[in-house]
């Protein structure tokens, strides 16, 4: 009887160890219930793998030069480092910063203004935008249907070679839902496997006092649209959520981004105006105004000493999840490399 228990223990131990080793995105218990169910593993042979191929394939753009990954790089937590505004085909520049992609299962809507209400529908926006991929679902389907490579891939995934909008969009969404990032130092502390340094701990207290209302734990966003009183860039005059809701009170409100992985996802804000965390903190401490005053969601300037800023940033850096960012299962798929060399 005792030996059976020991055996069971070892079996369980290896199962758990195996799951961890495979990078299975088992979310920690302190998370809220996600809106979408998570794929089993980023490497399982299902829609996730197909979505990964599509995500990295330039075939999605009108001139075959741009993929989803062009602006959503896995090594930047699927953001676009160093580019303030999104880039599209024929060197087009968009109007907003390409956001980082992770923990999407916990989002009730997508895009800076929440224009997309369901992840399956999201890819239609960049696909059709003339300043992004400049293509259409119809055009993409005809390219995919003409490709023996994709005929085989769809067959392997769905047991028949039908290639339609729903399958393309669901495959992309599955791959994106596999971007689960909860292996930061913050998470280890939360799980009792690590401890903050004194500086990080001091930063955590400052965060809790000044930032946590909008950047709510454990997702580090409350998922709402807020006006953080950024001076309006007159060249863009982007009214944010108002463009979707047409409600006056939503003018200049944008989705509160998660602060997780923030070292990888600069530049910051919906238009990528700040490149450094210190620029961001300077904004929140000054409440700079440009020309006119408007009602906004910041209660008061966050006045921090030089040391306090350093402490706060030390805490924010514990939200980085290098195991997520450098997970090879999210990078350019080998299969696509082989396919490209054939051409």
């Amino acid at each position, binding site marked *: 009887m005792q030996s059976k228990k020991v055996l069971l223990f070892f079996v369980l131990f290896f199962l758990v160890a195996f799951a961890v080793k495979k990078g299975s995105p088992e979310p920690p218990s302190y998370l809220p219930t996600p809106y979408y169910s998570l794929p089993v593993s980023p490497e399982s042979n299902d829609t996730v793998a197909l979505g990964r191929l599509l995500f990295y394939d330039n075939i999605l753009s009108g001139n075959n030069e741009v993929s989803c990954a062009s602006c959503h790089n896995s090594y930047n937590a699927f953001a676009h480092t160093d580019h303030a505004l999104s880039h599209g085909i024929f060197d087009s520049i968009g109007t907003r910063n390409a956001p980082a992609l992770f923990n999407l299962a916990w989002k009730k809507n997508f895009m800076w203004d929440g*224009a997309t209400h369901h992840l399956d529908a999201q890819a*239609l926006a960049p696909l059709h935008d003339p300043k992004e991929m400049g293509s259409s679902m119809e055009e993409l389907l005809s390219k995919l249907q003409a490709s023996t490579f994709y005929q085989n891939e769809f067959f392997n995934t769905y047991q028949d070679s039908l290639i339609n*909008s729903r399958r393309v969009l669901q495959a992309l969404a599955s791959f994106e839902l596999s971007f689960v990032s909860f292996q930061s130092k913050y998470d280890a502390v939360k799980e009792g496997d690590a401890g903050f340094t004194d500086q990080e701990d001091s930063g955590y207290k400052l965060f809790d006092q000044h930032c946590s209302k909008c950047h709510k734990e454990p997702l580090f966003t409350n998922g709402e649209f807020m006006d953080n009183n950024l001076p309006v860039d007159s060249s863009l005059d982007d009214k944010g959520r108002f463009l979707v809701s*047409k409600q006056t009170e939503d003018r200049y409100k944008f989705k509160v981004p998660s602060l997780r992985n923030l070292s990888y996802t600069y530049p910051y804000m919906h238009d990528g105006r700040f490149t450094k965390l210190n620029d961001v903190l300077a904004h929140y401490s000054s409440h700079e105004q440009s020309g006119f005053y408007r009602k906004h969601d910041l209660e008061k300037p966050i006045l921090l000493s030089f040391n306090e800023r350093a402490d706060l940033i030390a805490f924010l850096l514990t939200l980085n999840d290098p195991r997520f960012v450098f997970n090879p299962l999210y990078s350019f798929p080998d299969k696509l490399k082989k396919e490209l060399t054939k051409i």
Partner: protein
Amino acid sequence: MRAILLVLFGAVSITFTRAQLNFCLATDCSVSVPMRLNSEDSVSTLRFYISNVRIMHGGKIVWSAEKEHYLIDFNQDQLENNNVIGYKGSGLKEGVLKFILGVDDNTSTKGIGEGPLDPIRGMYWTWQSGYINFKLEGTSNQCPTKKNKFQLHLGGFQEPYRTTQNIELKISGEEEAVVFNLKKLMTTINLKEDHTVMSPGEKAVYLMQNAKSCFYAK
């Protein structure tokens, strides 16, 4: 004479048989768009979704459509797809024909559909997600737009701009026609102002309410 013209050029009719509803432009089912309504106005596209089609009698469903959603398209190449096939009940007796004009809100909150709901049908917005419930395009001398075009893409499933309309029509016999009076709809639209509607909002709701009032049993 005037009444005949209304049927031929300004009305959509649905012909009932025991097994199916046939959505037609006028009583002659071969009438289609593009169509000239009068010397000023012409319609090039008329398409809309209908959902949850059924006939109620005595509190029970006596007939219901086979599929949840239909894309009714009056383009000449699409007319043959405008049959709504029923699977429940054999004879159509008196009752109330009920359907939703548009994709029902519950379906809209979900992801992407197949068949009539496939986004390649041109009835799904890309920059802001959601189905276009009703699409009416054409030209009118009243429109201060390029080539006098009007484009009314009516949709929106979230409050306060929910556009779907519940339609209930009393029917009394086995052979019935439900008429959609396009001409009436055109007279309710101020094309000088409302010539380009392509996102959810007050105008879309108002125009969908107008469209609702244009269905009647005949």
